[in-house]
């Protein structure tokens, strides 16, 4: 079966531009997570969606970051006015409701010049 997919796999942008990252979770997984992983660092939680509940946005580092999810399908993470410190790999994961095991996508490597 298909796993979690993310696009694009790589994104290079100029400082100040907006970027949009996409995540397609595993079909039937109600929970979806976004993480940021800077070079040589662990995962930094950004946002969590669970079904129709209000998303947990407690990890978003600034108001330049936002995310949306349509029902229990695709999610997009948007970064406005990108800064060089936004350069990182952005990982998406999905899981079944009430189960902690997460399945990860390959990530999007974002480079802000």
């Amino acid at each position, binding site marked *: 079966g298909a796993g979690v997919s993310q696009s694009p796999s790589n994104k290079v942008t100029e400082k100040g531009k907006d970027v949009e990252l996409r995540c397609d979770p595993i079909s039937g997984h109600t*929970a979806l*997570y976004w*993480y940021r992983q800077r070079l040589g*660092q*662990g*995962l*930094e*939680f950004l946002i*969590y969606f*669970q079904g129709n*509940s209000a998303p*947990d946005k407690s990890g978003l580092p600034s108001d330049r970051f936002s995310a949306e999810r349509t029902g229990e399908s695709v999610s997009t993470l948007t970064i406005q006015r990108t800064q060089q410190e936004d350069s990182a790999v952005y*990982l998406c*994961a999905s899981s079944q409701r*009430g189960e*902690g*095991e*997460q*399945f*990860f*996508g*390959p*990530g999007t490597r974002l480079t802000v010049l």
Partner: protein
Amino acid sequence: AQSVTQLDSHVSVSEGTPVLLRCNYSSSYSPSLFWYVQHPNKGLQLLLKYTSAATLVKGINGFEAEFKKSETSFHLTKPSAHMSDAAEYFCVVSRPAGNNRKLIWGLGTSLAVNP
């Protein structure tokens, strides 16, 4: 508050020797604990998980971990390292947040396997 500490940022072993990657957690309730592995240029993969069943958990690729509540530890071990085990390993603890569930990630341990 929940937290997880990986005691070594880097571990180096020789092929064929045992592997020990240490993890301590802090939790105000009975947590679920996980180990994930990240190979270079590959996605994160679940190695094993503990969810209050048997305290000795066996995972993929010959890895196992033992949940020790008295020591608040969940160390990852393997009897004999293989070159393909070289990767980044993350210890993770889960916590509920309202009606949601969120994972708390350690900073990772980089495992190098020398021939």
